[in-house]
């Protein structure tokens, strides 16, 4: 694939890629942007090479996922250093609180419920419901077997439904 073709593919999938990067970064937009730009750099420099063994989107999502994992490892190191600087934590959290206020109530509840699931369950549900991938394609992105992805999908879906219904029941009661 030539650099021009790669760029065209990246452009085509940009918004979906951003959504996936956002998911992989715990919905932290600055991190997602950084991860996405690093991924584009890897793809265009050839350090991540598409060899046509899967669909381009499946492969690209795999690269984003791995890049996010590397990013988290580095971020954890930075956090440990930052913890030494007391009092600065509030400054880091402020933009996230602002974004949460703006977010639609329904989406906020979904994000909160997703946070209670295991990482694998979150991943597979995002890939299937948000990205419209098949479970098989999701398994490719997650680098797990189809059987394992299917199990995570079914359990995650049941748990998410239960959490959302529970929340629905509690909400009118709280409003009274």
């Amino acid at each position: 694939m030539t650099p021009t073709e790669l760029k065209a593919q990246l452009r085509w999938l940009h918004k979906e890629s951003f959504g996936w990067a956002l998911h992989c970064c715990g919905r932290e937009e600055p991190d997602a942007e950084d991860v996405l730009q690093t991924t584009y750099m890897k793809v265009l420099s050839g350090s991540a090479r598409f060899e046509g063994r899967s669909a381009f989107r499946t492969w690209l999502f795999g690269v984003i996922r791995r890049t996010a994992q590397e990013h988290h490892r580095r971020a954890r190191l930075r956090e440990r250093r930052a913890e030494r600087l007391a009092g600065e934590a509030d400054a880091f959290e402020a933009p996230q609180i602002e974004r949460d206020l703006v977010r639609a109530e329904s989406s906020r509840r979904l994000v909160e419920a997703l946070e209670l699931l295991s990482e694998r369950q979150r991943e597979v549900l995002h890939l299937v419901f948000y990205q419209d991938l098949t479970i098989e394609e999701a398994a490719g992105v997650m680098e797990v077997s189809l059987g394992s992805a299917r199990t995570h999908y079914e359990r995650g879906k049941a748990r998410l439904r239960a959490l959302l219904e529970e929340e629905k029941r509690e909400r009118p009661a709280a409003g009274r």
Partner: protein
Amino acid sequence: MNDPRPDAELRERFQQLRSEDRSAAPDFAAMIGGVRDDGSREGAVPPVVRGEAGLGRSAWHGRRWVWAAGSLAAAAAVAAVMVFNPAARADREFERTIRSFAAASGGWRTPTDVLLDIPGSEITRTVPRIGAPDGLEGLNGAARRNRS
């Protein structure tokens, strides 16, 4: 094990989240604009710490020639010092004199050289001949010489 209920509601929720995220997505051109065609990222390293990596292709090309010319000049200077160094030249003349003296003296040996010639040492330097009166002619010859 499969959940029999339809997924429409879940899907709808996810799609709502997706449309919100899409509106928050950064501009592709702006993002890709930060990545050059060779995959490196513009502004990834502050200019003050960039060093050679931060130089443009032509600037680095020019600097490479400067390094090559400098290296050649340094090598030439070292060679010149080695060739024209007066001390080195004196050493070479002394060596030449000693070599010519050694050649002129030919087979000269020190008077004590014979002391190094111990009985039986010939056996390590000669091969006994088959059919000779005794196979140790060389050894006997050495013994005779020692006696004399």
